[in-house]
């Protein structure tokens, strides 16, 4: 019915090797900086676009605007002192850092975490995943000019932040998962208040289905655009919903169950088309999974018990030489911590493996050529990348 194919007759033609010879001096190309200060960018990063007409012929991701040198700072801190800074690595979903770090330290130090603490950790992680997806839905709507989803989702996310606040004592940086366990028990009446939030969320999500997923404009602008061929998944290290949207049910929660995921009942949402629409749809389904999981956890978790293992005196806590890798399924894919210790009181090296690292760099740069300028924002958002976990 409509055709959005641009008239390319005037455009420069690729050479014999299929590559464009980009020469800015010819006047046919233009550099366009998409970010760092740009409403359509996911956080403080930028994509350097080379455009010809309104078609993008090359994109280079630039990161480092949020680089604080975490991996270096962690080497200066004792094992307990690392705990407050890990959550800062990823702002919208900080809890994965806390979990992965804590689990890595516990494994190398040989600490057994009480059962209730593992349930609490799972709860926190699912709440965080819910929040992260809320930001995603708001973002993908915003990237396509659908402001209302952003308004709703931010509101719902804020209700969840209230639950975070009463449970952990903070809105954004919860600092709740301490190596050895968690910092506290569920407050009185938490489950009931959580149920209220989940129900409100469900009504808003039902409306998002109508206003966004069933929307003809949204469908036209997302279906068939930004397709990641499943063959690219392994070479480009694609994980999480981005892979699931292409029919590969990659999910660490199922593939390599951690915490109490093996005691929970859930299905991994997948899609087939691997385009922007399917990626959004998979995440939408994942939110429902998260909501169900939160309900299950609150129902199944032990009612009482210790939440902290006994730690050695943290002021001079030494961990024997060793290395380990702990991973978990965050809202964007496989999140992992690689921890190397050398027997001293400080970590030798910590490497954070954020899914955005592969998604926003090599993969995005691979996908961008050939898209329309106006689709770049949607494409970027659909990969769901958070720059702080790329540069740390």
């Amino acid at each position, binding site marked *: *019915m409509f055709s959005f194919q641009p008239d390319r007759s005037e455009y420069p033609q690729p050479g014999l090797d299929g590559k464009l010879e980009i020469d800015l001096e010819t006047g046919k190309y233009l550099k366009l900086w998409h970010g760092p200060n740009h409403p359509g960018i996911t956080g403080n990063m930028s994509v350097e676009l080379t455009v010809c007409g309104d078609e993008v012929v090359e994109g280079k991701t630039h990161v480092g605007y949020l680089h604080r040198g975490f991996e270096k700072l962690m080497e200066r*801190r*004792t094992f*307990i*002192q*690392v*705990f*407050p*800074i890990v959550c800062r690595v990823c702002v919208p979903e900080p809890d994965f850092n806390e979990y992965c770090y804590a689990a890595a330290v516990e494994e190398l130090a040989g600490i057994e975490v009480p059962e209730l603490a593992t349930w609490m950790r799972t709860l926190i992680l699912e709440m965080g995943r819910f929040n992260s997806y809320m930001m995603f839905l708001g973002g993908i709507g915003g990237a396509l000019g659908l402001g*209302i989803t952003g308004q709703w989702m931010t*509101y719902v996310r804020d209700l969840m932040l*209230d639950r975070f*606040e*009463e449970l*952990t*004592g*903070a809105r954004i*940086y919860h*600092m709740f998962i301490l190596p050895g366990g968690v*910092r*506290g*028990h569920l*407050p009185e009446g938490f489950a009931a208040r959580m149920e209220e939030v989940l129900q409100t969320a469900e009504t808003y999500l039902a*409306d998002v289905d*109508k*206003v*966004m997923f*069933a*929307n*003809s404009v949204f*469908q*036209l602008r997302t279906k068939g655009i930004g397709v990641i061929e499943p063959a690219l998944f392994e070479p480009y290290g694609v994980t999480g919903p981005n892979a699931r949207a292409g029919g590969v049910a990659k999910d660490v929660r199922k593939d390599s169950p951690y915490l109490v995921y093996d005691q929970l009942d859930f299905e991994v949402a997948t899609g087939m088309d691997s385009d922007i629409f399917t990626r959004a749809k998979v995440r939408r389904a994942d939110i429902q999974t998260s909501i169900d999981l939160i309900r299950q956890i609150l129902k199944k978790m032990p009612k009482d018990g*210790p*939440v*902290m293992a*006994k*730690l*050695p*005196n*943290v*002021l*001079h806590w030494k961990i024997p030489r060793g290395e380990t890798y702990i991973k978990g399924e965050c809202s964007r894919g496989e999140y992992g911590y690689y921890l190397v210790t050398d027997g001293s009181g400080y970590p030798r090296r910590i490497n954070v493996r954020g899914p955005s690292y592969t998604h926003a760099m090599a993969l995005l740069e691979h996908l961008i050529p050939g898209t329309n300028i106006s689709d770049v924002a949607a494409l970027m958002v659909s990969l769901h990348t958070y720059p702080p976990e790329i540069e740390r």
Partner: protein
Amino acid sequence: MSLREVLTPFSVWKRVLDAPVSIADPFSREASEHYRGFHKNDMETCIGCGTCEAICQNGAIDMVPVEGQNTEKGDSGLRPMIDYGRCCWCALCVDICMTGSLTMSNEYTWVDSDPDAFRFIPGLNEPWKDKQAGYKRENGRVLSGTTRSPMGELHANERIDNFNEICVGYTREEAILEADRCVECGLCVATCPAHMSIPDYIAAVRDQDYDRGLQLLYETNPFSEVCGRICTHKCETSCAAVHEGDAIAIRWLKRHIVDNVPLERRVELIGAPKPATGKSVAIIGAGPGGLTAAYDLAREGVKVTVYEALPKPGGMMRYGIPEYRLPYDALDRDIAVIEAMGVTIKCATVVGVDVQMEDLRQSHDAVILAIGLQMGRGTRIPGSEGAGVERAVDLLRRITAGDPTVPVPETAVVIGGGNVAFDIARSMARLQKIKYGRVGLTLTALEDRAHFLADKEELVEGDEEGVLILDSRGPQEVMRDPSGQVTGLRTWAVTSIFDAEGRFAPAYDESDEQIHQGALVIEAIGQMADTSLLGDALTEKLEWNRGRIKIDSEMRTSEPWLFAAGDAVKGPDVINAVADGHRAARTVMEAIAQGEVVQ
């Protein structure tokens, strides 16, 4: 694209009927009950240990003096000042706080145009000082250990019929566990009279570096093996860990270090003394004070001769403290190290008899008097004169010397509640057990159980060994039968020990009278010095202060060549004597250097 897909989105217009979700007054919105907001500090509970500063990964906390908070034992007088240009509200400082004084309110708004304004001392006058809500750590979550590694001990049955040492000492694992609990605040250091670098040697235990530990010990205390066993360990009362658990077993860790370094290695680690200076000093009394001074002076290259009246060196450490608390070979090792520094100890040489003060003065650059308190005090109650009543120090000395004439009756009564009272009570109990197969010993003290002057362990162990400990009993009369034989002690219940002005004036409830059976009454209520060795002329010349030789803060007497140290002038225990010994040695060195010591 169907018409349906065009129209469905409009169905959400129903939301216009929803009530607005905006928070009407966001400015007075309370944060949650456990919100990690701005800090609070209970100034009275805070001890200024600086553990919050140590754990803060942002370097946000400074320890600063605060008006109205005085430095005293167990409280540094410093308080945390927090820089909100650094803080990240992780609350690790709250979690680690040794007293639980540092907490957080749920207050969260602080806006200012002056960047230097964001520093404050919580607990002074912040607006949220009295707010109740806010982050507090959950019970039981303390980031340093709270329970002490138990010390292995001989069971009461195993120890009561002999004088074997009771404490077996920590194993390496126990010692590391215990050392791990130390937070290295250093509050103990100033409490220790000798300022031993306690956190450092505890760190050495943690690192299993006993050589370094031993060197640290010898920097401040040549009687580490002795102190590791019988120190009164006042340091442990000011330990930061004591507020939410057991104090660190500082004394046992010290002992653990020494136990792990053989004697020859110790001498090797300390190293040779400085080259001889040609100066010489005489020291009277081979107790902890005298020998410490001797050690220090010998290290500085001074030729030291120690004169000791008794047959063996050690003073009260040997002749006052029973063997089950301090085995003689432990003491001998400490003394051997001191002798290895070139100190000459002349035992069984009584000053005033075998050698005169005046001779010492002539032949040495200076003389240090460290004679201790060798004479027991009496109660002077009716019947306390004559046979059947003994002084604790005399008895202890005779037991150590192996005197066969020590009286061991089937029942005995001890008057006193200090460590010496327990020493004699438990020694006598052992002798009774050996001789009669059972213990028949009663200990009466003025104080109630909570305020005994003796260490808590003494009470526990005394109980275990079958000593009948009676608290709040004031001695009134030693009962004798018509033949003059002691039959027991009559006591009244004590209602108060001190009067309104805080003077010693015990008051009794005369209606509560008891008679404790015993063929021997032992008085253990204090000691005094025997200064007869000085000779009349010198006694006349010296200045005195309430029966003790008067000294200044640097251990000088009124005579420029004579210095004094130890229990005889200050008291009251080994570690204080050691501290005195150091000070005396330092003063003597300065005096010698400045040529003040004019003959």
